[in-house]
């Protein structure tokens, strides 16, 4: 089958590509990139996309899919649908499922669930068996089964000694250790420690709980030569630590979640549990530092930390409610509205952070907009103004602080694995 995309601006900084052209895709592969007369391809389904922007398919390296174990919150399929609706053609899913992704069977189970989907799902394996922090998970087996990185996300790797071994061993798998940076003895609070937590009387998590584990990861990566990736960085000091480490040539990368560059702990004043996440919302100086880190490349990518929870769970008392918000369908819109349209990031930077860099960190093949390549594309409309309504979200969970927020810019279509998602429908192409 053929589809013809008309009038696109093709943009991929990885290829130094920025041209205006039509694209013909046949059986999921890019067949032509040139000015195309649609009358010559009467069989092709034509999409008139004048002025829209075609970029390599977006990738979110930090997603919680909840399957196996909590399919009431999210499944591989519902999460993938949400990813497609949010403009993503690939996601990496975190191993804090039940059972944890600590065996080849679970990796294969997830990949099998996603095999007919437009969205690529790459499991992240656990660093330790059962994420208990005691014995290393079978990293080589996990990698062979399809895992692309390792993390005990939800908590940091329990001890420095296990982290050391994990960084050494994972070199053989050529995959990064993704650290949830939080010192266990300082953890357990319900919000950031600040003037606001003092006023609200909520138990709090200080930024130094994050900074300590960021520093530990950096030092250990330096010592072992292993590869560490800092998940959902949220504190100013942590951004500085990563910047310094990169300057010293240490193999460290970092990601930031959209809520950490758009919201502060002032939002917690309403005691709405949709503002409860871990790391917690920090102060304005931290938000500013994250934006600066994204601008100067200290922070390599943007990742949602999509964390679905049921309404019943989120409606609990603030100190008992679980951490996290869904983010796949607001991530791109927040990035375009808050960072691109405000002039803080260029469109090229946005593409690097939402498509190129996360795949580089996980050693995944980079999609190219080139004749003969598989079509793995996201089509952006930068001037599409809309009001986000969580009730129409494809995720099984609705826990978001962004319901009703006005955005400017969204993905109107994604193409991958011989399918297109357009106007809320998947079509085989």
């Amino acid at each position, binding site marked *: 089958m053929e589809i013809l995309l008309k009038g696109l601006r093709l943009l991929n900084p990885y290829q130094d590509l920025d041209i205006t052209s039509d694209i013909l895709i046949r059986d999921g592969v890019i067949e032509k990139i040139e000015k195309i007369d649609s009358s010559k391809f009467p069989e092709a389904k034509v999409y008139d996309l004048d002025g829209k922007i075609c970029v390599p398919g977006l990738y979110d390296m930090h997603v919680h899919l909840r399957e196996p174990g909590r399919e009431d919150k999210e499944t591989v399929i519902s999460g993938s649908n949400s990813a497609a609706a949010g403009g993503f053609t690939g996601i990496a899913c975190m191993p804090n499922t039940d059972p944890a992704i600590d065996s080849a069977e679970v990796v294969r189970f997830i990949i099998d669930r996603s095999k007919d989907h437009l969205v690529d799902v790459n499991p992240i394996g656990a660093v330790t068996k059962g994420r208990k922090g005691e014995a290393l998970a079978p990293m080589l087996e996990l990698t062979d089964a399809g895992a692309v990185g390792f993390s005990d996300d939800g908590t940091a790797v329990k001890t420095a000694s296990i982290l050391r071994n994990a960084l050494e061993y994972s070199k053989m798998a050529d995959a990064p250790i993704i650290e949830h940076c939080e010192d266990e003895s300082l953890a357990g609070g319900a919000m950031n*420690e*600040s*003037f606001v*937590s*003092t*006023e*609200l*009387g*909520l*138990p*709090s998590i*200080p930024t130094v709980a994050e900074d300590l584990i960021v520093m530990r990861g950096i030092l250990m990566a330096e010592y072992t030569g292993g590869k560490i990736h800092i998940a959902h960085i949220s504190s100013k000091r942590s951004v500085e630590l990563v910047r310094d480490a990169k300057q010293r040539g240490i193999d460290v990368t970092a990601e930031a979640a959209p809520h950490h560059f758009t919201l502060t702990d002032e939002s917690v004043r*309403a*005691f709405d549990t949709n503002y409860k996440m871990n790391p917690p919302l920090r102060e304005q100086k931290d938000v500013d530092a994250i934006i600066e880190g994204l601008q100067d490349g200290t922070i390599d990518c943007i990742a949602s930390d999509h964390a679905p929870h049921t309404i*019943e*769970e989120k*409606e*609990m*008392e*603030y*100190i*008992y409610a679980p951490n996290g918000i869904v983010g796949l369908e607001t991530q791109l819109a927040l990035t375009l509205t808050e960072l691109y349209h405000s002039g803080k990031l260029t469109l090229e930077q946005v593409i690097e952070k939402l498509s190129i860099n996360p795949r580089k960190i996980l050693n995944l093949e980079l999609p190219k907009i080139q004749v003969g390549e598989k079509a793995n594309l996201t089509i952006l409309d930068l001037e599409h103004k809309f009001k986000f309504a969580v009730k129409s979200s494809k995720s099984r969970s609705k826990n978001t602080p962004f319901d009703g927020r006005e955005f400017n810019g969204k993905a109107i279509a994604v193409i991958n694995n011989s399918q297109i998602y357009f106007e809320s429908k998947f079509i085989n192409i």
Partner: protein
Amino acid sequence: MGLSSKHLLGLNGVPKEDIQLILDTAITFREVLDRPIKKVPTLQGQTIVNLFFENSTRTRLSFELAEKRLSADTMNFTKSGSSAAKGESFKDTVRNIEAMKVDMIVCRHESAGIPNYLTQISNAKIINAGDGLHEHPTQGLLDMYSIREKVGKLEGLNICIVGDIAHSRVALSNIYGLKTMGANVSVCGPTTMIPRKLEELGVKVYHNIDKAMAENDVLNVLRIQLERDAGALIPSVREYHNYFGITEERIEKNNPNILIMHPGPINRGVELSSEVADGASQIILNQVTNGVAIRMAVLYLLGSKN
């Protein structure tokens, strides 16, 4: 003229006129408590539920008595720990109770913010009887009432709250209320017991009890939680007493006229020496009586509001 809000969630942001009105109204009810027949028909026909999700004897008894003195119909609901762990969500619990047609809910909960949440899921008037480490407004009001009763004013008075400020809802409510009323508020305690950036509330911080005593007219001394604090926040109760405990000797040396208050229950020999506790017992017990009057005033003012 009534209160500006239909709830009492905390003292943060409550206007001076409202606090003044509650304190003045409490004077009348305080007199009622000294009568042979201590009951008035003010809230007859109103139903109040005391929703206590955390252990409390004194505050609950005080509220219950205040409600009975006002002739309200009262119900008690006591439950501890996470509601979900017990099988019914907090929201369902509250909705069920409210379906019995209650006018006011008095709530104590270990999670900060629960009273605010109650205003969203219920139509009843909400009174916060302590939420996590956030606020305990009626305790703050009764402390202010007791100080005013004893000294005659709050404005311009130097008042220091002593103890574990970081883990005290009483301290925060006192700070908010007293500052609104024009008092100079300070706190004194070991560095580990002072919450971050407290100074931003316009509060002076002492780590030396002698200095705090010399520079203040009133000390409101908080209870040290023996089980929680010793070993983690302070090395030992003995060391706390030696460096922060209020003794006769310290009073004599620093400020013989200082007024010592305590929201109770007292750990004798820890935050107060036994002699000081006995010497201050009149005002400390008076705080308890005033607590009933303050709660009557709050219930009356909210209950008579449409």
